[in-house]
């Protein structure tokens, strides 16, 4: 469970989130939707404990957090396989396991390639594969399908949906069909600054 209690987050003069209250359950999928700049990514960062609210608190019961960032954040000097292995524990970093994740995200042919040789779509898939391979009980995805075409999205979505069954998953999207694809509850980010998450 994650409880947001009266959280406020400001960046200088600009208040992005103000007195926001919400409780996420232990499991389930939630899609954060709202106009650009409304505070979706800021909220995701607060959930990931990468940021702290000025006021209020984020109460977590989750121990292992995984995230696919908006930018892939891959290490340019490691190949695809090693980028994946880097975040995996010793028990999970076997070649078979990394190959399995690369195969699921249709990256088997690029296992030994470096990020600079990958397309934006491939980088995003690798970033998603890393987040899912890492596991954890809280999965955060910032616009996970933004660089994927429709056909790829349809093929990749079941793997993410499978992960959603074992973890609380919160993702940012601009496309309502993404929420349907992952069986997620849509949370509309309302107010400027963001002060309400309303379910539909």
């Amino acid at each position: 469970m994650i409880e947001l209690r009266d959280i406020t987050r400001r960046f200088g003069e600009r208040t992005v989130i103000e007195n926001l209250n919400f409780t996420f359950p232990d499991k389930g999928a939630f899609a954060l939707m709202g106009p650009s700049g409304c505070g979706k990514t800021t909220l995701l960062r607060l959930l990931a404990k990468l940021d702290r609210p000025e006021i209020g608190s984020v109460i977590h019961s989750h121990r292992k957090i995984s995230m696919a960032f908006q930018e892939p954040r891959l290490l340019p000097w490691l190949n695809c396989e090693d980028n994946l292995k880097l975040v995996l524990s010793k028990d999970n970093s076997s070649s078979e396991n990394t190959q399995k994740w690369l195969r699921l995200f249709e990256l088997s042919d690029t296992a030994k390639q470096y990020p600079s040789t990958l397309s934006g779509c491939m980088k995003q898939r690798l970033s998603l594969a890393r987040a899912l391979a890492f596991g954890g009980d809280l999965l955060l995805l910032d616009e996970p399908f933004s660089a994927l075409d429709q056909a790829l999205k349809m093929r990749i979505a079941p793997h993410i949906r499978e992960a959603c069954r074992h973890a609380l998953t919160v993702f940012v999207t601009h496309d309502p069909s993404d929420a349907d694809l992952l069986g997620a509850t849509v949370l509309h980010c309302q107010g400027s600054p963001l002060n309400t998450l309303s379910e539909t």
Partner: protein
Amino acid sequence: MKKIPTLPRWSLPLLSILFWVGAWWLLAVLFGKPLLLPTPWSVITTLFSLMRTASFWQTVGLSLMRIVVGILLALIGGTLLALLTVKSSFAHHLFSPVLTLCKATPVASIIFLVLLWIGRDRVPLFIAFIMALPIVWSNVREGLLQTDKQLLEMAALFGLSAKDKLLAIRIPSLFPYFLAACRSAIALAWKAGIAAEVLCAPKLSIGRGIYESKQYLMTDELFAWTLVVILISAAIEWGALKLLTKVQSQKKWEVEPRDRVA
């Protein structure tokens, strides 16, 4: 239209050297005063006769050792100082004036001052160290500050160990800056170290060879020792950079900072 034949790329530096040696030769012949400007041939023959003596190799070896030890100490010290001054702003403010002082003080002043404190034999090592230290320090510090924050954030989120962060992010990010530091520091420290040897004239040193040949007006020997300095400088720089760039390309660490975030 007839095509003008082009020279192979490798021949251009060689031709450039031949041109300047030719110009030197011509000037020496026209000038006609070998005491002031010897010909390249007399310099080369003097160098070969020096090379046939055991003391030449001892001299070169000892000079090389003094200065290389100074450079290595500067690489270690500069890196440690950079780590300290990035971690602590108090340390940064405390040590910053020392950095400015090292950069601004004329090397001759430091040489004479240090000569009084530590004796002539240790001055070249110290001077090589003190000249290379600020370069290594400022470059490595810049490298540490420029490490991609997004990658560090990713590492923190996925709970990477300190060892993994060091090996997978810190060192590869730092390497281009370290390489740049080596490039500048080696050449400067070598020249300053030899200058210290000239002024302090420790036993069995290239600097003493230069000093004595100037004292006794053996200009061809002066030129020969200078040639030795130039050749060793080029060899150290070439060797060190070759080694470091090999490590860099094997590990794929050559990515420019702006390309770091894929």
